[in-house]
């Protein structure tokens, strides 16, 4: 089983999974921010904002992630020359690719986060919003103090699913040269095709380890935090 020790030494598989985790967490943060904003736009009373919000969701949700990521690199960087890293630093190419990947992943998953939060808003009973209006809260305060706190708690299970999907989708970043888990797996498979099942097994288990606890955690959180009605 020398291939397992090779995974830790020669290929530095842990570093690769570390990249996967960084990609996931950073993108999750940005996607949550963008997604919440889009969800608020979609439930807002202003028609224009509703249209913008649903156009964003419909366009992004129907575009393949691979295309989004490739567009970030080939389109934004190579064609339009948009740099997200200091071009003078020695690691600028790697940094730039990493940040472009985070950009693509965030923009893509924000659409799913928005849908999750909107489904959370739908779990809040009508009486809550009506009561908030009855005591004179305007729209934004109704959202901020009454509806969104409950909506987030109702949206935890779908948000967890988005996070799991994001973890898995971060592998697509390898297409623009981020050395995360799947990129390292590809190299290992090319060098050691004789033990291809073992290599696949190692990386597959890595992803099971990453996603399984998230699933369990979010399920238990969604039960614990669900608003009792």
């Amino acid at each position, binding site marked *: 089983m020398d291939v397992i020790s090779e995974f830790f030494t020669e290929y530095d598989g842990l570093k690769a999974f570390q990249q996967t985790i960084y990609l996931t967490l950073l993108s999750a943060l940005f996607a949550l921010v963008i997604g919440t904003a889009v969800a608020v736009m979609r439930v807002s009373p202003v028609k*224009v*904002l509703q249209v913008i919000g649903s156009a964003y969701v419909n366009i992004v949700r129907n575009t393949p992630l691979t295309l989004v990521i490739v567009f970030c690199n080939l389109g934004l960087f190579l064609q339009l020359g948009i740099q997200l890293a200091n071009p003078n630093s020695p690691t600028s190419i790697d940094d730039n690719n990493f940040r472009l990947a985070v950009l693509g992943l965030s923009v893509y998953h924000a659409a799913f986060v928005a849908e999750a939060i909107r489904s959370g808003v739908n779990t809040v009973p009508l009486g809550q919003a009506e009561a908030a209006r009855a005591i004179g809260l305007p729209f934004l305060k109704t959202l901020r103090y009454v509806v969104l706190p409950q909506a987030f708690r109702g949206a935890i299970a779908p948000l967890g699913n988005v996070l799991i999907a994001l973890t898995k989708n971060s592998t697509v970043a390898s297409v623009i040269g981020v050395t995360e888990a799947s990129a390292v797996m590809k190299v290992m498979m090319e060098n050691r*095709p004789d033990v291809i099942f073992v290599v696949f097994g190692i*990386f597959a288990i890595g992803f099971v380890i990453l996603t399984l606890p998230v699933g369990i955690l979010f399920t238990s959180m969604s039960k614990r935090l669900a608003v009792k009605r």
Partner: protein
Amino acid sequence: MSTTSVLFDAPGPKAKRLYAAVGVGSIVVLLLILWFVISKLNEKDQLTAAKWKPFLTAEIWTEYLIPGLIGTLTAAAIAVVLSLTIGILLGVGRLSAAAWIRWPCGIVVEFFRAVPVLMMMLFAYALFGYYDLFPSERLPLAAVVFGLMFYNGAVVAELVRSGVHSLPKGQNEAALAIGLTTQKTMRLVLLPQAITAMLPAIVGQLVVILKDTALGYIITYEELLRKAEQIGNFKSNLLPALIVVGAIFVIVNYFLGLGAVKVEQRMRRRGRSAGGPLAPDQIDQTAVAAAAAAALPPQEQIR
């Protein structure tokens, strides 16, 4: 979905003015962003006729875009058929009364749902290549289909399971009471109703499969995205090519999504199945009711 309108009162004169102001303000912001994007594109000479004209010529369509679309649709179609087959088998297996069938099916489903599709494609590509299982020109297609088939098969298996769970208990009990075996109960009573209830979700899953064929780009499968790159190299208009291909994806998927909604509405009218239809939104790639599905009572998970 109409619940959202409850979040705010019918606007009075003051609120109407405010909304109008916010609306106009956001249009202005939108136009500013658009203007910025267009000027940026213009600055980099992306809006010249030479870059966009090729899409009006027959050559680009017959040589690149249509073959690319056919490549995408072929992979998606094969993957759909195969994933439905193994999905139904795994789903039924997971509901089996025999533990020695239930457990392995459960492990297989959970495993394939946890592993990224791209990794399965890379694995299949390396595996099929190393053991020479497919002729080299078919290798990318085989790898794409392999990855899509197992991931989506696992998703369909979960759909079947939640579909069967969403049926009223009386269906199962009545079937057993008239003397059907558990197998026949599943085949004649539960599965047909579950599949009808799942139909919108399955159509929704088609969008996911179609989108994921674009992963084939990474293993050199000749689909739309790869063709976009080729057009870009040929006419040196990479950015327009990516935008056009993106638009094709959005249009095709948007209509598939509409189809899912239509199927759902139709079934709601017909109401033949004892369980309600599953919402298509719910069963996206991201929104597959993961571990939560197993733990929640059926009514909650399909809400």
